[in-house]
């Protein structure tokens, strides 16, 4: 089976304080070289805290941001030109904020028609048929088509966003925090819809979230990102129960869970590393209880631990 998505050491470096002419003042590495493979039909969860580079990674995957190095391969096809229109037929994006991802001055019909018209050049009748088919599969009534985005609740707007992404008939959907702006009672409606659509259209998902419980509930495998790099990747079943990287353990211990007493899972004065002045060695070393001299000198590579679990750590936790 060919992989739906293959990333070969893609990375992204942003210039900071760029003057009109000349070199920028500093470079920030938002994403360090990431190598990943996502199987067809798989859901890969990506978790990490704000600023860990998960959204930048996602934007590179759909061509909204050209990678600084590396290559992206979708179903065996190389994509290296960062042209969203070329990516659009293969891979689509569902945004975090459902309302802000819909143009407030366009009707829902105009929004959903755009990919059909621009990517596939469909005529009017074909478009109408395809739209009613898509609307049916995301459980929206066709009378919504002539309304404007502000008339919808968050959950409905997110379903419209999903309908727009599906309209392009992509093979892969990148879901960037698709439910974090929604209430819990509505969140499950959208997640269950996504699960059904995946089976119906044979899609592959890349599911980005900061909510570990949601990621665990929907993913086959999970990648944990910290400071621009994937620090651990493994099956969703095992990764939070038997983490090998201390950061994964910290994340799992921090999530508030009913029935677990309240305690700060780490020292009270820890701080994130400064992207303008990155530490040498492992970026997590300053927060890590197991850190040694080796960690502060040499950046650990992602190494296989067991089965399909990989972690980037010199002193991994016991399974």
């Amino acid at each position: 089976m060919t992989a739906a998505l293959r990333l070969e050491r893609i990375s992204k470096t942003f210039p900071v304080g760029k003057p009109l002419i000349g070199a920028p003042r500093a470079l920030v590495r938002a994403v360090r070289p990431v190598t990943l493979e996502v199987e067809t039909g798989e859901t890969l969860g990506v978790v990490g805290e704000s600023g860990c580079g998960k959204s930048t990674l996602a934007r590179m995957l759909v061509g909204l941001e050209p990678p600084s190095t590396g290559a992206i391969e979708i179903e065996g096809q190389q994509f290296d030109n960062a042209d969203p229109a070329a990516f659009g037929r293969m891979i689509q994006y569902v945004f975090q904020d459902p309302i802000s991802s819909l143009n407030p001055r366009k009707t829902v019909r105009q929004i959903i028609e755009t990919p059909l018209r621009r990517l596939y050049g469909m005529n009017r009748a074909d478009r109408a048929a395809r739209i009613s088919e898509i609307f049916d599969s995301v459980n929206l009534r066709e009378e919504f088509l002539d309304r404007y985005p502000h008339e919808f609740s968050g959950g409905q707007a997110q379903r419209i966003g999903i309908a727009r992404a599906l309209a392009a008939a992509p093979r892969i959907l990148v879901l960037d925090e698709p439910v974090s702006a929604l209430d819990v009672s509505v969140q499950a409606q959208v997640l269950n819809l996504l699960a059904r659509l995946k089976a119906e259209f044979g899609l592959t998902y890349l599911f980005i979230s900061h909510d570990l419980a949601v990621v665990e509930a929907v993913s086959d495998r999970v990648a944990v990102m910290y400071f621009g790099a994937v620090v651990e990747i493994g099956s969703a079943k095992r990764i939070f129960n038997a983490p090998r990287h201390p950061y994964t353990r910290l994340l799992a211990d921090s999530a508030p869970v009913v029935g677990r007493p309240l305690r700060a899972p780490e020292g009270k004065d820890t701080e994130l590393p400064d992207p303008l002045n990155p530490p040498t060695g492992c970026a997590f070393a300053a927060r890590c209880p197991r850190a040694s001299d080796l960690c502060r000198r040499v950046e650990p590579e992602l190494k296989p631990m067991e089965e399909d679990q990989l972690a980037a750590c010199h002193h991994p936790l016991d399974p």
Partner: protein
Amino acid sequence: MIAFLKLLARNRMAAAGGIVLSFVVALAVVTPLLPLQPPDVTNTANRFLPPFSEGHLLGTDHLGRDLLSRLMWGTRLSLAVGAAAAIIAAVIGSAIGIVAGYFGGRTDNIIMRIVDMLMAFPYILLALAIVAALGPGLMNALIAVAAVNIPFFARNIRGVTVGLAGREFIDAAKLAGMGHGRILAQELLPNVVPVIVIAMSTTIGWMILETAGLSFLGLGSQPPQADLGSMLGEARSALITNPHTSVVPGLMIFVIVMSINLFGDGVRDALDPRLRSGALTRPRPATIVDRDNVPDGPGDGVLDIRALETQFHVGPRVYRAVNEVSLAVQPGECLGVIGESGSGKSVTALSVMGLVASPPGVITGGAVFHDGHDLIGAPYRDLRRLRGDKVAYIFQDPLATLHPLYRVGDQLAEAILVHHRVGKAEARARAVALLKSVRIPNAERRIDAYPHELSGGMRQRVGIAMALANDPEVIIADEPTTALDVTVQAQILALLDDLRRERGLSILFITHDFGVVAQLCDRVAVMYAGRIVEEGPTAEVLAAPAHPYTKRLIACVPELGQGRRELAAIPGLPPAVDRLPAGCHFAPRCDKAREICGQEPLPLARSGARAVRCRFPEEDIASQEDTA
């Protein structure tokens, strides 16, 4: 569109301006049809006739031409030239601004520096230079005025576009296969048109003045053609002997520019979404109170909210955000209020200290007792004394609550100085101690930091320090960890818990997260559509929820460690609080609902420590009490 016209009509000055302006424009339009004397025919025998002379209503000028006729034709020309200049400047300036704002980076930098250079010249000098280069004439004056105003539009529109270009719908359009041209024309342009209209409505009067200025200097319309500026210019030499020749066109310019400016301001106010949503009406220092039922004191616990009702009155609609909410916080207790967005939990919290924006907020019933006194309806002076001193707030977004231009230490010191007469040095020392108490490392150094220099977690610690500044009895924390990462959230929750135990603080903790409630709160109240549906000790409510809503909401929350699975959902949406159902608010989504549920409201039934508002509860809380 109708709402826009209504808003415009409500603004009396704008309406008056609009009426005068339409009258002038109507006159200008029909001028060729009116039985006027020819404007350019000289008759030196009748020069400088005063107004109300026979055949010349407004008199004649230095060449004996009829002033009324010249005024009408001149007004027509001035209006046309001013409007044309405004349209040209708007089109070119907006195009420049939209392109610069969308592409950003180097394109933006180069375009905007050129625009800056244009703006660096005094505008009238620039206009003179353009006319000097092109030669005098009305057309050239028009070009000059338009060119001089392009930077104004370019900068305005660029600012708006930069904000829009970063929005997600632009990314979505790129992924839908739209090219740059289509995105500019179809996605961005419709969103900036209101701004263009606003900018035009406020500058068109100015452009008419500028054109008149150039004509006055003899660089605009050429004799014998009349426009308002050239009429003034020609009358200048007779200003003392025959003032009416300059007063007539001068008054007309005044009337036109005043009416356009008044009308333009009205258009701007009616179109600007921030002003439209009520930002023009300055909120009062405390929420308006208009109560029918006032419960008797003195109340129970440090903070006793009794049958509180808060509504928002917007036009004919009444949004019942909070309905008869009663909550009592005991000393040293942490009471959680949990609910989804729109359940009224934040409005309840803000009502306590009269912080709901009024208008449109009104507290229509109930009381909040603190220390035996009712806070609702208390004089503003008393409220101000208590705010931050006895009852303090911690808000969700620490970046929005801290002032970006002041150092955090100064903001902390200010919070202390408002309530205590201490010296600056003492206040600063206390601020350092506060930062230490919320475990900010390097407090002595961090006190001089600006909010943007701190991470989200550190900023929220400053927010907590500020709430602690005056040793309050109650802290109302409104989703204080929602904007934070999980590892930071765990630290902040542990900190709040420690502080509460060290200082015997009472906390009213508002959240949507059951995990947070379970870890921090002694008791919990569940809110749905403005009402409390269930209340009780946290462990009991979570283990055996009595209200169907609570039970199903808990089932929706995914918990870590259960692997891949289908999640439960509650179908439907919460009701809109301006159209609440008559009976139980949850009935339309409840699978246990019977006919009676939707018909009659039900009080919160209390039994021991627990309370539930349901006819067919999931758990019998009364029998539980007996067995316990």
